[in-house]
Structure formats: structure tokens, C-alpha cells
């Protein structure tokens, strides 16, 4: 009886082996195109030579739906505006870091992708997103189509350095600081400087001039949480010229100013100890370039 069962089992097992011997060959053609299909136009060639080759960065100026934030309604960027923005970003931002920290630092630490979006990203509470960074690999700039516009609430005239900062450069420095912080966290002692004063999501209900500055925050958004405070102060310190900085310190008053300077000192140490960057040297380079960028050629790609 036992044998019978074993034989039965053997038969069943044997049959089960033959059952699947159909055509399980590996598929024929690759699903990816094997012929190179990309044709670069003049601007794309310029991006390759000025961003990708020297800094290992892709500038995503054509909208790619897998890269955008679908919780917003967005429009693509105008390619002519992208060219202008790329010229300025290279001069005021990438080249400034390369000048002070060396091109290897830039290659190793800047995000891999810089994305340009034409429209604003508008939140339901009426606030607008000025830029985002994702996991250190991508920084997105919005409102690119208003670059070089002369009128409108969100216009960013080329000659208006402050508007350029508000829309693009504070974002770039701010998000870049996040990336640096992710690679090497700043000492938590910073978080205690303004402990208990952070407003999280309600930050936009406070005025920068009458509330944030006197309380030791460079901008109302810095009151969201310590790491935003850190990144925002860093970017404002680098981009504000001496006059603007002095104006803000006047609003801050002696108490606010003392707190802000304590925070700047903290950042100065962090940048020196972790990244071997002299914060004031970097600020000087940024400011010098700010006084020169208008003489660049924006009509031709060189």
C-alpha cells in the first residue's frame, strides 16, 4: 500500500515537470530604444557644456511629468526665459561656489537636477511655493516665466537683484544648505537658540518686519522650524547686500540682532568645520558677482 502511494506520488510529480515546458525564451527586442535619438538644439548643447560637463548637473527646463509635483497645477517654462535664468544661475551661484570652494565641492554636493517651472505653485491657503528640494538630488525653481517681465505682482525684472534673490537665489542657497545639512548635520545647539519660538505651519501669519526680525528670525518663514531657520538665514546672509542687511538689523533692534548674529556665528563655524568654506568669503564672492551680472550677454549663448 505504501509503495502504491509512493508510485502515485512519483507519477504525479513526473507529470508536473512536463507541464510548463512551453516557450519560456527570453524576450526578443529590448523595450528601450537602442539607437541614440536625442538631438540637442543650441540651448541644450550650451547646457551640456556649461552645467552637465563641468558640474555634473542636468537642467530640466522641459517639463517632465514624472518630475513635477502633481498636487499643483503648473505650466512649463518658456525656453528663452530658461536660457536667461541658466546664464544668471551659473554666474551668480555655481561659479560663486566654485570660486570659493573649488569645482570638486560643487560636483560632489550640488543637486544632480535643477528643474525650471514656468508658473508659480499656488497653495490652497493662497501662499506660493518659491522652490523645493527633494532628498538632495533636485532643486526646483518656480515662476521662471516672470523672469524679465516688467509688470505684474510676480514680475522679476532682470535688473532687479532683490527680485532675483527673492525668487531664485535665496531658494537655491536655502535648498543647498538643506542638502549640506543632510550630508553633515549641524550641531543641535542651534535648535536651542530660539527654542519655543517656532510657529510651524502658521509662520505666514506673522510679519517679517514687525515680528520675525525683532524675535531673532531673518524672515517669517524662518519661524517654521529650526532647520528652515538655518537654511533661510544662510541664504539671506549670502544674498543680502550690506544696505539691505543693515535695514533688516534696524528692524530687528538690539535684541533681535543679537540672536541673529549668534545664529550666523553658528552657521559660520559649521561651514568652516564641515565644509572648509569661509562664509564671509563666499558672501563676498556672491556680492561681487551681483554687481557684475548685468553686464553678461543674455541674448547669445556663449
Amino acid at each position, binding site marked *: *500500500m*505504501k509503495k502504491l*502511494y*509512493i508510485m*502515485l*506520488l512519483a507519477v*504525479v*510529480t513526473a*507529470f*508536473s515537470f512536463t*507541464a*510548463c515546458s*512551453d516557450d519560456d525564451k527570453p*524576450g*526578443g*527586442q529590448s*523595450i528601450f*530604444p537602442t539607437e541614440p535619438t536625442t*538631438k540637442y*538644439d543650441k540651448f541644450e548643447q550650451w547646457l551640456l557644456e556649461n552645467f552637465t560637463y563641468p558640474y555634473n548637473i542636468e537642467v530640466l*527646463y*522641459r*517639463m*517632465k*511629468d514624472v518630475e513635477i509635483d502633481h498636487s*499643483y*497645477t*503648473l*505650466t*512649463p*517654462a*518658456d*525656453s528663452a*526665459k*530658461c536660457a536667461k535664468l541658466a546664464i544668471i544661475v551659473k554666474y551668480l551661484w555655481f561659479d560663486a561656489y566654485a570660486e570659493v570652494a573649488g569645482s570638486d565641492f560643487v560636483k560632489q554636493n550640488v543637486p544632480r537636477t535643477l528643474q525650471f517651472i*514656468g*508658473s*508659480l*505653485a*499656488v*497653495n*490652497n491657503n*493662497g501662499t506660493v511655493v518659491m522652490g523645493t528640494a527633494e532628498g538632495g538630488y533636485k532643486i526646483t525653481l518656480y515662476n521662471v*516665466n516672470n523672469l524679465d517681465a516688467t509688470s505684474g505682482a*510676480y514680475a522679476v525684472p532682470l535688473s532687479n537683484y532683490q527680485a532675483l534673490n527673492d525668487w531664485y537665489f535665496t531658494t537655491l542657497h536655502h535648498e543647498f544648505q538643506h542638502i549640506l545639512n543632510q550630508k553633515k548635520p549641524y550641531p543641535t545647539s542651534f535648535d536651542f537658540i530660539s527654542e519655543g519660538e517656532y510657529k510651524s505651519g502658521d509662520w505666514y501669519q506673522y510679519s517679517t518686519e514687525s515680528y520675525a526680525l525683532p524675535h531673532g528670525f531673518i524672515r517669517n518663514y524662518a519661524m517654521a522650524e529650526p532647520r528652515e531657520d538655518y537654511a533661510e538665514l544662510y541664504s539671506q546672509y549670502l544674498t543680502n547686500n550690506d544696505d539691505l542687511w543693515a535695514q533688516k538689523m534696524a528692524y530687528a533692534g538690539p535684541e533681535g540682532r543679537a540672536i541673529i548674529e549668534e545664529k550666523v556665528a553658528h552657521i559660520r563655524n559649521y561651514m568652516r568645520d564641515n565644509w572648509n568654506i569661509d562664509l564671509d568669503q563666499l558672501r563676498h564672492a556672491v556680492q561681487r558677482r551681483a554687481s557684475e551680472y548685468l553686464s553678461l550677454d543674455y541674448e547669445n549663448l556663449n
Partner: protein
Amino acid sequence: MKKIFLYTIMAVVAFTMQSCLHDNDDVFEQSAAERIDAAVTNAEEVLVSAQNGWVLHYYAGQEYAYGGLNLAMKFKDGKVTMYQQGAIDNNDNYITLTSTYKFTRDQGPVLAFDTYNDFLHSWGDPMAANAPTDVDGWEADYEFVVMNISEDQNTITLKGKKFGNKMLMERLNVSPEEYFNEADVVASAFDYYSKLNYRKDGKKARFMNDGSEFTIQYLDEEDNILEMTVPFTYTNNGVLFNQPIELYGQTISGIQVNIETAEDGTISVTGFQLKDDASQVLTEPNDPNEIFAKYNWYVAASNLGTVAKAGFEKFVESCATNEKEVVEYMYLGTYTYRNTKYYGLAFKSGRYTGCTTVGVDADFADGNKITFTPDELVSNATWYTNNDFYGEATDPYFNTFNIEYDNDAAPTKVTLTDVNNPENVIILTTEEITTPAEK
């Protein structure tokens, strides 16, 4: 022990059965990836093949809420050049804007306009001027799934990826400029004939055009009036609805207009018919109640029934005694005062004129029925209403009447019979009548 064997065999059998589930025969000859690659390549080839480009009947808003407009597009070397109907420069030349496009593969081939082009993307900007939403602009798409390419490759059906509207792209046989100029003429024809009647096997409907959508009135089994609205765009030979509609079992995707241009350049409209069925013509409304508005209808005392006559005579008498005036005429029709045209019951007493304006509700279900309602007093109508009983002369008209003409094609006389009061009969004539009290 026996049980264990049994279970083992059962288990083995069970596994055996499962193991072949993945061995289905392929339904398609090519893999999914190969097919989508082929679809993308094909779609791109078709787009580029149109020398004159394409016209896109473009719609914005969830469920086509914000209407449509025409864009023309020419595709070449990864660049698209766009035109928008009506967007011309100071020299009357069409403006063109160039940007990039690409095909991606997600929900089938997707045509993405991936850099900014003002003609297309301005609608999708969250901060678009006058946009109806707070954060979504005009709810306008710029990435489209290619749903279908017609056999003859002359039409492409697209579907907006974010807001889901289906739109039609048509291959142009003439230049975009020429197409838009023709479409402008078509638009003026539909503007002039803003109401069109549909008649088929005793069924009737009326198409009313407000410039961006048609409101279509039709009747159910019990002659109740139903309405549907359908947004449309103009083409070079008619209008194209955003989606085909169903009317009395007939599918209608648009209306064609026949336009003839004479040697001297005069343009005349010779008829309208359904795009889907040329034998089904649409005509200007010609219900008795529609004909009514084309004439001025004069009052004569002898033509009035007892109800209207009493009021009219009271008015005439008061004018004679109070104002020492003779009533020169009274009619129902168009009255002009200070360059404004009114429709109503007008009179002249001595050298003074006035008008009680009248709202006309022509009954769509019963074409022989018409209702008049009083609106406002214009010019001297106020004086004569307050002092000379003009209100009593006009009151009998403000009812619902059955209409009867002596001759439908060229009427000279109409008989209005109050549907609620057979005593109230009013006969009016197109012939001008002076001193109506004596006629």
C-alpha cells in the same frame, strides 16, 4: 501515514495545477513595450506629415466648463509652431509662437507640450488673468493622451491628461491663416442666424447659439420642453460640438453651413444642415409666433373685440377731452426713442408718441401660441397712462393668445384669440392705419 501520503499527493496536484497559469498564449504578436513604441512612432509620423499642420479644437475646464477655441499647430524637428484663431498683429498677420513638444509613453502615447507657448499654456497657468479658479487657472491641459488616429490619418482624438476633456485635431488642407479666415466667415453666419429649427418626422427642436455654446430645446413625449447645452468651436465649414449629442435618436456632431461668395465678394448663406446627415436641414424658425416679430401690427377700432375695444375707446376719448388731441395711430412693434429700439405697444396722440414695452414669450412646444407681458413705460407713455387711460387700452394685450394669419408666407392680417377668454379677440394688420378710432 496513509493520510500524510494523501495530503502530499493533494499538495503536489494542487501545485501542479498552479504552475501553468502563466503559460497563456500571447494575445498580441508584439510585447506591450513594442506596441507602445510603435504607437508613439506612428503618432509622431502622422503629426509631422501634415504640411499645413493641424487645427486643435481646444477645450478648457472640467467637463468642458469654460468652452473651446481653435489653435493651429505645425510640427517639425521637435518644435511646434502655434497659431490661435483671431490672434493677429497690427498688420493683420497671424502671430506664430514656437515651443517644444515630445512624446512620452505612459497612458499610451502622450503628446506633451513641454515648454511654454502662450497660446496654449496661458490657460493652464495657476495665476492666469481672470481665471475662474484659485489655484488651477482655467483647468486647461497641455499633455494629451493620443486616443485614436483615424484610418485616413486626418483626425486625431486627444484626451487631456489632467482634466480629461476629449478634443479633436483635424489635418489642415489649407494654411492655418486661410482656415481661420474661413472660420471667421462661418462664425458671422452663425452669429446672424443665431436660432435654427430642426424638424424630423414630426419631432422638433431649436438650436440657439450664444457664441460659445448651443442651447438646444426639444420636447419629451408629453411635449414638455427640455434643454441641453453643448459647447462648440467653429470650423471652416460649420460648427463642431465638443462631443456628439443624441437628439431624438440621431447622433449629431456639428452643423454645416453653406456659404456662397459672389464675384463681387458678397457672401451669402444658402443653408444649414447636420454635419452627420446632409439631408437633415436646419432652417430659420418659422413658427407663427416667430413670424410675428417681423412686422409692425396696427390697431383699428373696428378690428377689436369687445374687451380690447372698450379700453381703446376710453383712451381715445380721454385724449380728445383731456389733451384736445386725436390718436394718430397705435401698433404693436418696434419703437425707437433716443436712438434706442424698443418692442412694444406704441401710440401717437397729437404730436406725442410713447410706448409700453412688451415681453414676448413665443411657445416652443405650441408654435401657434404667444404670450405678451408688460415691461416698462417709454417716453410719453407714462403721461398717457397716468392721465388718459393708456393702461386700459394696452391691458387686454397682456395675455396668452392663439395666433392665426390670413397668409402664413406674407401675412397682412393676424387674429389673436385669448386662450382664457374667447371674448378677447384682437385683429391686427400690417397695413398702416391712421386715426384708428374711425377705422
